[in-house]
């Protein structure tokens, strides 16, 4: 398909913006805002241009290094386009939230935009080399953003984040080199096609011996770190807590989705049968991620760590849905459950991105007003002096809790609808997560909003007009998707159907 190279433009745009922002000094935030807005408009344009049958559209191809199997190949389906939209939304929110960057604003916003470019690139790439380049590229701005603008313990946090993710990437790289050595291709659609006929496994085994399981583990490790899945999640609380809150919004809202996306675009299509073989331990890990994530959140005293662990918990539901559907059955009932679980997981990715980013935004607002305080016990009775702030943050918290009528519920319902028939034990254990999450979130409300007004909170300023206006779209979107999830699912469902048709377990 030829035509206007909108995906290339989309990826290039933040890079251009970054270059301008770098020299714009104090006006860098304005540059970043405009760039993020235009990117969002483009991402939404992509969303409307998707092929109706759920296949990959807006394809751009060009020879790059044919002898190395490297081709410039871009394209998106409902999954990719949804992630583009999410990245654009979260970047805009992050730029919006970061209006107190006094140190090197030019560099800060340039790095944020570079990160956005990394996200766009990896969500549109259809070739491993290209994808991996952007996967790594997004890491560098994230590292510096934590390292230079982070909290007191930013050094170790940034290092752990970077090194851990690099270790995962190394595993991914090795796996793909092996695949390339065997098949001579690094092209996702091509490899998916080989895998769906079973040819991939035969070829790899013929060339390299019985290494398929090891490759699977390598690829899974790469993504398990990124998502993260227990027990590979320990970098996350430190990184999320030490990063400046607007950067945490990007990390949790968009970057964590790269891991889940990778599972859906790479791990499941290429290694379906192997994943189906180790499905039980994977489900155990997913359930642990869900339950222990929630429980760890309940034990935290720092709001950012609470929300960080809640992110672990919420992405655990995605993992649960994805691993549960890795079953070989092809009867109608199984198909329906798989479709429900996958729709739920994809929707959950978006919902989590939106809600978690909004929550960290609120943390940023709380920190601004108290000179950096963010402990659960640092506040008290905020509802009295700041009713609007508490009302809106309350909505975001209940969205995270999974209250029907808000966005969070729909994804979780669909995931449980799909997982229960396929893996009822894992589903039953994981509902414990729903319960403990609620306990953690209600504790936040009780300690921060309710109770007698703490002395130093008496004059706490409520949200002013500009902040209300900035937050309104995010809160509005939570309501909108809670009531009309079709707005997203109508484009996701064809893709889900299409993906499932090409996956073999």
């Amino acid at each position: 398909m030829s035509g206007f190279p909108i995906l290339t433009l989309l990826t290039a745009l933040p890079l251009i913006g970054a270059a301008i922002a770098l020299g714009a000094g104090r006006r860098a935030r304005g540059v970043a805002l405009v760039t993020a807005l235009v990117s969002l408009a483009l991402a939404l344009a992509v969303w409307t241009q998707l092929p109706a049958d759920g296949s990959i559209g807006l394809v751009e191809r060009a020879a790059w290094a044919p002898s190395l199997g490297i081709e410039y190949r871009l394209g998106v389906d409902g999954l990719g386009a949804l992630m583009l939209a999410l990245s654009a939304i979260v970047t805009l929110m992050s730029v919006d939230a970061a209006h107190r960057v006094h140190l090197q604003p030019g560099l800060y916003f340039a790095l944020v935009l570079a990160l956005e470019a990394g996200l766009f690139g990896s969500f549109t790439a259809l070739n491993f080399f290209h994808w991996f380049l952007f996967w790594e590229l997004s890491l560098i701005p994230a590292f510096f953003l934590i390292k230079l603008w982070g909290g007191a313990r930013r050094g170790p946090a940034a290092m752990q984040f970077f090194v851990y993710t690099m270790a995962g990437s190394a595993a991914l790289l090795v796996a793909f080199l092996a695949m390339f050595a065997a098949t001579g291709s690094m092209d996702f659609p091509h490899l998916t096609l080989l895998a769906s006929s079973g040819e991939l496994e035969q070829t790899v085994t013929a060339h390299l011996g019985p290494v398929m399981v090891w490759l699977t583990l390598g690829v899974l490790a790469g993504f398990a770190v990124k998502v993260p899945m227990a027990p590979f999640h320990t970098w996350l609380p430190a990184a999320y807590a030490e990063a400046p809150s607007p950067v945490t919004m990007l990390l949790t809202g968009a970057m964590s989705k790269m891991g889940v996306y990778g599972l859906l675009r790479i791990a499941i299509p290429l290694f379906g049968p192997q994943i189906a073989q180790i499905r039980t331990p994977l489900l155990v890990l997913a359930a642990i991620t869900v339950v222990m994530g929630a429980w760890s959140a309940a034990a935290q005293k720092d709001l950012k760590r609470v929300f960080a662990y809640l992110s672990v918990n919420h992405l655990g539901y995605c993992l649960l849905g994805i691993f549960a559907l890795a079953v070989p059955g092809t009867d109608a009932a199984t198909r329906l459950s798989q479709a429900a679980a996958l729709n739920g997981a994809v929707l959950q990715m978006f919902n989590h991105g939106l809600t978690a980013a909004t929550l960290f935004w609120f943390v940023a607002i709380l920190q601004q007003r108290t000179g950096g305080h963010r402990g659960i016990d640092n506040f008290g009775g905020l509802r009295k002096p700041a009713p609007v702030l508490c009302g809106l943050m309350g909505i975001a918290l209940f969205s995270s809790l999974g209250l029907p009528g808000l966005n969070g519920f729909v994804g979780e319902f669909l995931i449980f609808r799909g997982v229960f028939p396929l893996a009822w034990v894992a589903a039953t254990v994981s509902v414990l997560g729903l319960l403990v999450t609620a306990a953690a979130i209600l504790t936040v409300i009780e300690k921060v909003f309710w109770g007698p007004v703490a002395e130093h909170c008496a004059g706490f300023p409520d949200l002013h007009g500009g902040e209300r206006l900035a937050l309104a779209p995010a809160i509005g979107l939570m309501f909108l998707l809670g009531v009309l999830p079709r707005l997203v699912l109508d484009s996701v469902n064809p893709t889900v159907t299409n993906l499932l048709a090409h996956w073999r377990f």
Partner: protein
Amino acid sequence: MQEDFTQPIVIATQCYGTFAARILWLIPAVPMMAAGAIALLKQSHRKSSALLAIGSLSFSLFLALFEFAYVVSGWAHGGRTLETFNFTWIQTGASNVELGWVLDPLSAIMLVMVTFVGLLIFIYSTGYMERDGNYTRFFCFLSLFAGAMLGVVIANSLLLLFMCWELVGLTSYLLIGFWYQKPSAAAAAKKAFLTTRVGDVFFLLGMVWLFAQSGTLLFYSNGSGSMEAGALAGLLAQPAAFGLTAAGAIGTLIFAGAVGKSGQFPLHIWLPDAMEGPTPVSALIHAATMVAAGVYLIARVYPLMRDGALNGGSTASLSAVTWVGAFTAVFAALIAVAQNDIKRILAYSTVSQLGYMMAGLGMGGVAVGMFHLITHAFFKALLFLGAGSAIHGCHEEQDIRKMGGLRSDMPVTFLTYAIGMLALCGFPLLFSGFWSKDGILEAARHWSVAKAPFYMLVFGAALTAFYMTRQVAYVFFGHWRGQKPAHESPAVMTAPLAILAFFAMALGLIGTPVWPWFRAFLEGRAAGFDPRGLAEPGFLALMCISATAVFIGLALGWRLYGDRSPRANEPDIAEKAMPFVWRWLRDRLYVDELYEATVIAFYRQWGRAADWLDRWFWGGAVDGVARIFREWAKLSKFLDANVVDGCFDKGCDELSAGGGLLSRAQNGRAQSYLRILALAVAALAAILIWSCRA
């Protein structure tokens, strides 16, 4: 009067998308929109907020009456109305997730009850909350509650019901914690939400299971709904664990949701604490409507629970409903005996009466349980509002030992409260509670599985009469023991009391054996007037038993507490007789303490353990690996300088020169990470070239 409850209900022909069914959504939607509008109002717009709330609910009441009349007229023409309107909400794979609303006698009568009782309580609230600073917020939450509750009622889809059910839980949470600055209110709200959510996660599992099995969550959909014959047959044929069929297992899971919401043992602990909310909230949400939602839910999914019963027997899920209900009825009544807070006594009484409703559903069918639900809604709302009036009159005093003699100071409150109390006790013939409770006892007497529930419920009836007599004697008799003199409440509060009192008596008329209108209406049979119904020998005997139980309770209560005026610090007269038993009952049989020592302790320990694991076990492992990496990075730095040419370093230097801060923050590590990356890319390129050649 007693019919075999397994006898199928007269099935009407289903109509789809009629006008009456199509406009049902307006009934919940209008109060919800009002809630949204009030939320945007300023705190100072008190009048407009109350007007919006009352106006919208009046509109809903009007529509509900229209729907009710419509169903009654359909019934008069010899049919049981069953009209639905369904639509696709989302699509996943090849299947649709559908939502919809249903109009049948069950939803019609609930709609009228909820809107009518709700409206009276809204009006009462304008008086009760007059001086509250958060007046507008109160009406916002109340309207949201009304909308969500009405949504539960009209839902023709278990999913829609669940969604509204959770919203009802949210509003309950917000209203219990309405006086959020009180730590006790904040704690009670959280406890209520979490305890009901324990039930809800089981409900969710039951729901997704039902969805997976029957392919739809619609109740009725022209034969393909999950409560219709086709789907039920499939569910019955499907075995699940523990000898249950899928239908039995799903039914039991859904019942767990009802246990949470309707305050049944062992999840009853939140309801007494919920009395931290303003009294109108206790009346509307925690007595009349929301807590009854669990009972309504069971009535809605009754086909699922009933099917598979052998003739006259019971199913596993219905037996569970019965036993839990009967146990709760006695258990809560016992605790109510030894409470001193006027609202807590009523709260335990609500728990107990909800147990009666559950037992009635389990043993007698939908009509028996629902009749008690409706009569209870009126007389319990009356009692709570009366208690609110008394609290108001006594300057926010809630301890019954510090009241007394109110019958002369607050005559209207006294008269209406006495009517409510006699209705709750089940005083023979004149009061609605008598007829609805006797329906349950009658069903219990004929229950083929066991006779114990019957005796438990009769005992519970005597206890109910006893603790209510104690309360009324303390509050309204004897002499005034407070500081400032009590005063009667304004007309805006007493008028709703009078209206509710009228219904607390009159509603009994529609459910007597002489004219079993209610049952006939729900089941779509003709309601005949038959004076012989009263003379049935079995019924007379039962009436004697239940009346005796009530009289024993009343007499004992009066004998112990009538016209005495014990001081607050004086031990209760029953406490002197049996101090040990009394202490146990007063301390609510230590269920809360048990949970504190087990569930809550477990929750805290696990939280700590999870945190510890993360910080030290996994974190330690990662730190170890990281240390290796750091050493390796040092090595690579050395190698770099010699192996890779200086190009990259130069680039780094430029970068650090470019950003002043950047260079300050760099302590060497940052470059080494970049070097790792560069190495990795170089390695990638090298291996690619190598493998290409291979």
